[in-house]
Structures are given as C-alpha cells and as structure tokens.
C-alpha cells in the first residue's frame, strides 16, 4: 500500500516533487526517508523496510547489491549531476579549466568542498581538480564540509570565496553564483543509481520505481538541474 523509498538527502527537493506528482496521479502513498547514502545503505543491509533505494554514488549501491538485496536487474542509473564552481562574489568569472588561476581567485581563502575522501561530491571535485592539474594548488586550501549543502553554506555566508558543489544545489542558493561547470571529462559521471529492493512486495513499489524513469519525473528532475540518464 505504501512505497518506502530510501534516498540520498541531496535529492530531497526534486524527489519530493516527483513523489507528490506521482501520488496525485496514482493515489498510492510514497514515504521517503532522506539520509546520507552510507547510512541508508547500512540500514538496508541491516534489514530496513525500504522498497526502493536511491544512492548518491555507486559504491554504496554496490554494497547493497553485494548483500544480495537488489531484485534481479532492477538497478539502474537514474540521474547524473553536474559539478560547478561557485563563488559568493559575482565579479569572479572564469572558464573553469586548467588555465584557471585558482590560487589568485582564492586569495588566501578556502575552497569549500564536501568531504573529499568520502562524500561523492567531494570525491568528484577532487578528481576534477586532479584532472585539471589544480589539486596541488587547491589541497592546502580545501575546507571539507559534512555534505554538499554545508559546503555551499560556507560560500553563501562568505566564509569561503569559492566552493565546488552540484549544479542542483547552486541553483537553489541565491547568495552564490556559478563561475562555471567543470568539464564533463574531468571527473567520473556523478551518477545516482536507483534500485528496487528484494524487500519490495507489491506492484505499487514497482510502479513508482518505473515512474522514476518516466517522463513526468524526468521533467521535474531536469527542472531541478539534474541530467536524466537515458
């Protein structure tokens, strides 16, 4: 009767809209738990009553899959996000590429990112900077936040002049502006895989899972700044 979705917290705005739209159309009820992908994955492995899992990265989805909790062939890459460089000061302009004068733009300030070893946005950001040959310059100045949203807040409050966040986040924060997108090839695709879990028992679960890849959902995701896979 109810669809239980465990979803990465950063998807909240988009996924809430998708779910509201779906519920209005189908009459089914969708209940979404937002938390860090890592916490959700561990909970699912421990037997959480989730029907659908949407992770912000591949590795935690891999863990869940390894635990044998994904229904056959029902894992798919749902969305991709774009990594952008943001600044609080509107005069900061750039192309975001290997020629960028990162040190000059920082001017002794910090570069806000999500945790570079553990949170996907941070990992992608680090990969991108490495690819552009800027990591050496950036590393001493990186301030790693708990999550993308916190990194964004550091820029929004003027604490850090620059930050690396997802395009989806930058879009919703009026106090920052996008300096530029990182080149697509500079980091691995920031993919959000979704999976129908073995826990799911009825058609409703499956219907919502399919709806996530549907057109209506795709429109909403795109509007929020995501790139829809397929």
């Amino acid at each position, binding site marked *: 009767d109810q669809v239980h979705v465990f979803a990465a917290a950063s998807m*909240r705005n988009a996924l809430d809209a998708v779910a509201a739209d779906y519920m209005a159309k189908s009459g089914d009820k969708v209940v979404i738990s*937002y*938390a860090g992908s890592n*916490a959700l994955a561990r909970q699912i492995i421990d037997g*959480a009553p989730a029907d659908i899992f949407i992770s912000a990265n591949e590795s935690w989805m891999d863990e869940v899959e390894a635990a044998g909790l994904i229904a056959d062939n029902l894992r798919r890459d749902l969305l991709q996000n774009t990594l952008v460089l943001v600044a609080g000061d509107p005069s900061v302009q750039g192309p975001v590429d290997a020629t960028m004068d990162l040190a000059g733009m920082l001017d002794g300030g910090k570069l806000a990112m999500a945790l570079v070893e553990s949170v996907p946005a941070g990992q992608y950001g680090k990969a991108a900077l490495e690819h552009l040959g800027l990591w050496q310059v950036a590393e001493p100045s990186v301030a790693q936040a708990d*999550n993308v*949203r916190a990194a964004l807040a550091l820029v929004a409050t003027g604490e850090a002049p620059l930050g690396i966040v997802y395009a989806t*986040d930058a879009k*919703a*924060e009026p106090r920052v502006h996008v300096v530029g997108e990182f080149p697509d090839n500079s980091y691995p695709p920031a993919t959000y895989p979704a999976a129908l879990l073995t826990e799911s028992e009825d058609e409703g679960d499956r219907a919502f899972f399919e709806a996530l890849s549907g057109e209506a959902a795709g429109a909403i995701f795109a509007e929020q700044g995501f790139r829809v896979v397929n």
Partner: protein
Amino acid sequence: MPDWLTPQQWQAVLLSLQVSAVAIAASLPLGILTAHALARWRFPGHALLNGLVHLPLILPPVVTGYLLLLGFGRRGIFGAPLDEWFGIVFAFRWTGAALAAAVMAFPLMVRTIRLSIEAVDPRLEQAAATLGASRGAVFRTVTLPLILPGIIAGSIIGFAKAMGEFGATITFVSNIPGQTQTLPTAIYTELQVPGTEAQIARLVAVSVIIAMAALIASEWLGRRLARRLAGT
C-alpha cells in the same frame, strides 16, 4: 494546527515529544539505579560501568547509532533474540528512536542524579537505618525524596538532549516520516537542500519553545521542592 509547518512536520514534532518522553520515563529507573550504584557502592567493574554509561557521550553520535544498529537492529545480537522471544522490535520503529534517545540521554541523566545522591548527607541515611529501615527502605524513604530535585534536573536535561538527538537516531532507525522522523531529523532533511531557511527557522522555533516550556516547568518544580526542604 497552523499551516506554517507541513502536516508531516507536525507529525515529527509530536513524535519527538513522544519519543523523548518515553525515552526518559523508561530509562529513569535504570538511570537512578545506576547513579546510586556509581555514587554509593564499591564493586569490581565500577570504572567499567562508569565508562560504559559515558560511552554515548564520548563517541560521535553516528557511531553510537551504528553500534545500536549492530546490537538492536533486526539482525542485531540483542535485536534478533528480543524480536524472536518477546516480539520487541526497535529497528525502524519509533521505539528504536526512543531507544537511541534514551541511550544518548543516559550519561547526562546518570551524571546529574549521581551528583545529587552524593550530596545527600549520609548521616540522614544512617539515622533511617537506626530506625529500622533496610537499605532499600532507606533509599525509598530518604534518599529518593531528597534527590528529587536532581532527578527532575536529570530528566529535564535528558529530555532536552532527547529532543535534540539526531545522529544516533537517523543512523539507527533512519528518517521515515510518520514512523521515525523526529523534529531534529526533520530539520536535518531541510538542511540538506538549499533555500529552506524559513522552514528550518520554524522548526527550530518549535524545538526551542518546547524545551523552554520544559525548563521553566522544571525550574518551578525545583524551587518548590527547595522551599519545602528549607521548611519555611
């Protein structure tokens, strides 16, 4: 209910109240017992018990949450037998949120109560013993009434902590609206996406109002008790 919170958020407020109240009420007897043991008994393992009680304070809440998941999750070493034999399930239920809140509030409660037990003049307990009161009776009739202010203080600080508890809860029982989504996890959800400052402010205001009400009530109670003890 005013519509400046969504129904789901109101639900989280009510659940938080329920979870915190149940967590404190249910753990209070054990808290008093533990405080008494730590304050007045000498036994091997005293330091160990003391350490164990403080553990949730020392560890990052998320770690406590994971340990709870390992211990009291559906497949946990205590969780599985509890479910099988008594049908008690914590995993992903509000009871689990209460367990997490209780565990996190426990060290605060015990510390506070213990301090007030240590402040009880042992000569009064001796007087009670000479009048025929057994250890248990002394505790019930003398120690317990005298530490009432400490118990109230401990419960309130525990309640406040339970109302604010987030890391262990979301890690242990996740953030399921209507079932395990408490006020702090609701705030967390808002915090994850930009542009939700107003919502967050409202939720925080509700938190603060509830906690202030509890604090004022406890101050009032405490002052009444103090006046009674002074005899005037």
